[in-house]
Every structure is written in structure tokens, then in C-alpha cells.
């Protein structure tokens, strides 16, 4: 009936070893991916790679300048749309904890966080691409802005919730009006948490491809007009990775390395900030 003590202890340590092995096995794919992409991408990267446009198949020396510029423009426009709305909505949620509108609003933010990115792409297509009569970088930015919103809102709300109430009360006691209390006292105190949320959301959308497929669409030429189709790094990787030509695939490896370094640096940087300022996300 009772198993001997030795057997039980053996089982316990056996399970511990198994847990440790499984836990560290999770890291293996990430290291494999990092190693492979660095190995495949590092030889393609040089100065020409950053300043040239992609060349047709057969010609060497193509670059990803259009995708880099496009990515930066699309992300900038998305940030301009999403950051003010996100921060204001986060303030609203942290200031009105009990109201019915805040409950529904919070629920909708939760829903928005779980919506598959491809669905947001479809919606942006019907909201902007169809009415404007063509694919445009602006519609891609709006799609990405919708994906940024829940992260910015959540981090703003959580950071402001952590601030002591006495801070606000002291400011009100001095006779400061509400908007000045929020903008001059509350937001500056929580700025590090808000900023890390913003950076996290930028890191998240920098690698998004699915919503851009039917919105920004991609463009083999350098374009800075946000009402026209525009290339972006993830789109370039997707299009060239699935192409049968080695030249294009090599370009995609270099672009993957650039994108990976960009996204991982943003993430690590965010983590360092949050640790330094002891913000919980």
C-alpha cells in the first residue's frame, strides 16, 4: 500500500530533474532561431544593404532601404494615432474605477487585446482601403494603431493605479484643477511605466505582418507618401522568403536579422527600464 520512502524521494527528485530539463528545453528553439538567423543574415549586411533598393532577380547588391523607411513611417504614424488616445483612455480607466462606462470600456480593451491581427487587417481594409480607393500606408498605420491601443491603455492604467492616492489629494488640496493634476502630477509620476508600455507596443507592431497584407500592401520602390502603398520590413520578409529565388531569400535573411535585432533590443531596453523604475506591467 505505502510506497517505501526511498522510492518516494527518488520519484520526487526524478520529477525535479525532468522539470528542469523541460524548462530549459524551451530556450532551445529560441537559441536555434537566433543562431540560424545571425548565421544566415550577418554575411548579407553591409552599408549597401541599408541604402540600396531591392534589385531584380539576378542582380547582386540589392538592399532594403524602402522597407526600412516604410517601416519607420508606418510605425511613426501608428504611434502618433495610438499613443495619445491610449494614454488618455488609460487615464480615464484609472480615474473612473467604478463607473459603468469604464467597465464596458475595460471589457472592450480586453477583447481588443485578443483579436487576431488578420481580423484587424480585414476591418482596416473596409474602413480605409475601400473608401479611399486603394491600398495605402495610412490604412496600415491605423490597423497597427488598433493593435497598439490595448497595450498602451493597459500599461497606463496599471501604472497609474500603483501611484498613491495621497499624491492626487495633495494636489487637489492646493486648488489645482483636475486637468493640471493629471497632466502635471499624475502622468509625470507614472511616465516611466507609460513609456515602457509604449515601447512594448511598438516592439509588438514592428514585427506584425498580417494586418499589413491588405492595407500597406508592399511596394518595390521607395515611397514616402502615406496615401500610397508602402513596403515594410515584415512584408518584405514574407514576400521574399516565400519566393523561389535565392537572391531574394538572401535579402530576406538580412532583413530578418535587422528586424529581429530591432525588436529584441526594444524588448530588452523596456525590461531594463521597468526594472530600474520598479514598474510592474
Amino acid at each position, binding site marked *: 500500500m505505502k510506497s517505501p520512502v526511498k522510492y518516494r*524521494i527518488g520519484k*520526487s*527528485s526524478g*520529477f*525535479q530533474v*525532468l*522539470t528542469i530539463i*523541460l*524548462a530549459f528545453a*524551451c*530556450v532551445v*528553439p*529560441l537559441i536555434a*532561431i537566433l543562431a*540560424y*538567423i545571425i548565421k544566415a543574415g550577418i554575411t548579407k549586411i553591409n552599408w549597401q544593404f541599408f541604402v540600396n533598393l531591392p534589385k531584380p532577380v539576378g542582380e547582386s547588391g540589392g538592399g532594403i532601404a524602402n522597407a526600412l523607411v516604410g517601416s519607420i513611417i508606418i510605425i511613426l504614424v501608428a504611434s502618433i494615432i495610438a499613443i495619445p*488616445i491610449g494614454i*488618455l*483612455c488609460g487615464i*480615464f*480607466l484609472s*480615474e*473612473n474605477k467604478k463607473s459603468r*462606462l469604464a467597465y*464596458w*470600456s475595460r471589457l*472592450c*480593451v480586453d*477583447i*481588443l487585446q485578443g*483579436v*487576431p*491581427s*488578420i*481580423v*484587424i487587417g*480585414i*476591418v482596416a481594409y*473596409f*474602413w480605409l482601403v475601400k473608401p479611399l480607393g486603394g491600398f495605402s500606408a495610412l490604412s496600415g498605420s491605423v490597423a497597427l494603431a488598433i493593435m497598439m491601443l490595448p497595450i498602451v*491603455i493597459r500599461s497606463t492604467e496599471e501604472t497609474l493605479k500603483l501611484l498613491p492616492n495621497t499624491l492626487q489629494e495633495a494636489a487637489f488640496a492646493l486648488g489645482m484643477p*483636475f*486637468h493640471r493634476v*493629471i497632466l502635471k502630477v499624475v502622468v509625470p509620476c507614472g511616465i516611466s511605466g507609460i513609456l515602457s508600455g509604449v515601447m512594448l507596443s511598438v*516592439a509588438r507592431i514592428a514585427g*506584425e*505582418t*498580417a494586418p499589413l497584407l*491588405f492595407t500597406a500592401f508592399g511596394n518595390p520602390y521607395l515611397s514616402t507618401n502615406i496615401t500610397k502603398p508602402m513596403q515594410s520590413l*515584415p512584408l518584405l*520578409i*514574407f514576400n521574399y*522568403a*516565400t519566393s523561389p529565388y535565392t537572391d531574394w531569400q538572401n535579402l*530576406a535573411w538580412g532583413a530578418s536579422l535587422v528586424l*529581429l535585432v530591432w*525588436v*529584441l533590443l526594444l*524588448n530588452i531596453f523596456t*525590461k531594463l527600464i521597468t526594472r530600474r523604475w520598479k514598474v510592474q506591467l
Partner: protein
Amino acid sequence: MDTSINNDLNTRSEDALRVFTSPGKATVKSAKRIKRSYRQIKTENVFRRTLTIMGLAMVILVLGIMLTLIVQSIPSIKALGISYLWGKTWDPVRNIYGAFPFLIGTLLTSFLALIISIPFSFATAIFLGEYYPKGWLPNLLKNTVELIAAVPSVIYGFWGIAVLVPIVRSFELKMGIDPVGVGIFTSSLILAVMIIPYAASLGRSMIQMVPSMLKEGAYSLGATRWEVIRSVILPYTKSGLFAGVLLSLGRALGETMAVTMVIGNTSLLPKNIFSPGNTMASVIANEFTEADRTVYLSALIELGLVLFLVTVVINMIGKRIISRFTKE
């Protein structure tokens, strides 16, 4: 120092005197003050209203997404009816639309990925939550696992094409199945890697919340570490771990790019887990820009609507469980 304060006091009292002696100036000043406070109250109201509008905007945004999807899929709902969901053939050229192969493809890839990833994510959660909650090595592991979620999915897909597909192909050769390499199994493997962090990080925080009294009680009765984990920690955190699995599932269902790149993209009903197929998200990504007929396009949007509703329900249940767990 002293003199300056004195000077200041003097000028102030002079000011007060002047105000007192010349009533005209006083009214101007108080009028100014009233004007300023009136303006501040006005700005305050505008600010409050802006905040409320932003809160309302989120509700409108989500309702708008849902309405757009419903309105745009009406042509297909009208033309194809409910049997659309279990029609087995998808042939846009002959104008036949059945979503069953994609439903099966989505369910197969997601659940297979879940089954593969659960041992790893639970092991990570137990390792970080119970065995080694502090120290530099667990901290490094925790951050590395979180970085898994940060890698863009298109890079997972590209790596899958270059590395995983040849491996799966040689494995299929040994097994004696059609060595295509791409297919449901390959995409499940990629998905499994991608969803590990979701269940792991949630599980870790849940396991750390187990009251130490319960654990100590079990230890004092002579339980080994494994017995404590199995009969105290796991039962206590059961619902939280389940919520983590649900969130991973929601993520796996909606994942598009990595799956699109390695699943093979055929609209046939998959015969086994190694055969190529298509998921709902991947078929939308592949065919949306090619859809030239209203019914075709709207059939794809209906897939998006189904995807939206399913992920919303799964995420809602997961979030509900988490909030109930953390309140206790």
C-alpha cells in the same frame, strides 16, 4: 535674505494698500481672477469630457469591428446559409464555398500545438514558481522565455521554411508518408514554440500565489516535494493554469503568418496530421486580395467573423478565470 523678505512684504502690503485705496483696480483684478478660474473650470470640463470620449471610443471601436465583420459577411450568409460551415469543398472557381477544411485545419493545428507546448510551459511555470523562484539563472530563463513571445511571427515562419520543413521531411521519409515537409504537423510545432510563454508566465505567477501555509502543512505531514506539487500546488492553481492554456489557445487560433508559411496552403480536407492544409487565418491571408467576387470575399470575411467570435469567447473565459483567481 532678511532684507529681501522684508522688501517683498513691503511691496505686498503696498500692493494691498493700493488695491484698497483704488477700487477700480481691484475690480479689474478680481474680474481677471474670476475669468481665469472660469477658464480653468471650462478646460477642466473639456478635459473630463475628452477622457470619457476616449473611454467610449474603445467601446465604439470594438462594436465597429464586430459590425463591419457582420455587415460584410451578410452576402455569404444569405447565399450559402449555415451549411457553409460544414461544406467539405472550397472551390472558388466553381463558386463552391465550404469552410469545413479550414475549421478542421485550425482546430488540428491549435490543439496539437497546445498538447506539444503544455509539458514545456507547465514545467517552466513550476520551475520558476516553485523550485527556483529567485537567482540569476531562473531570472535569465524567465526573461528568455518572455523573449520567445517577442520574436515576430514572420521570422518564425521563415525559420520554419528553412530549418524545420527539411527536418520534418526527412522524418516523414523514415516514417514512410508522403515527404512534403510542409503541413499541419510542421505548423503545430512552430505554434507550440510560439505559445509557450503565455501559459508559462501566467502559470508562474499563479504558482507563486499559493499560500506557503498549505505547502508547509503538507511538508510537515512528510510529503516529498513532488507530492506537494501534485496534491497541493496543482489542485490549488488548477483554474489559473487552465486560464493560461486558454490564452495560449486563443493566441494559436489567430496566429497567421508563421502558419501560412509552413502549412502548405491547400483547400483539401487534411487526411492526417502530416498532410498539408489551411487554417482560417491562413486562407484569409492567402486569398483575400485575390477574391474578385462578392460572395468569395464575403465568405472569407465570414471566416474572419468566426475567428473573431471564437477568440473573443476564449479570451473572455480566460480573463474571467484569472480575475476570479486573483481576487480570492
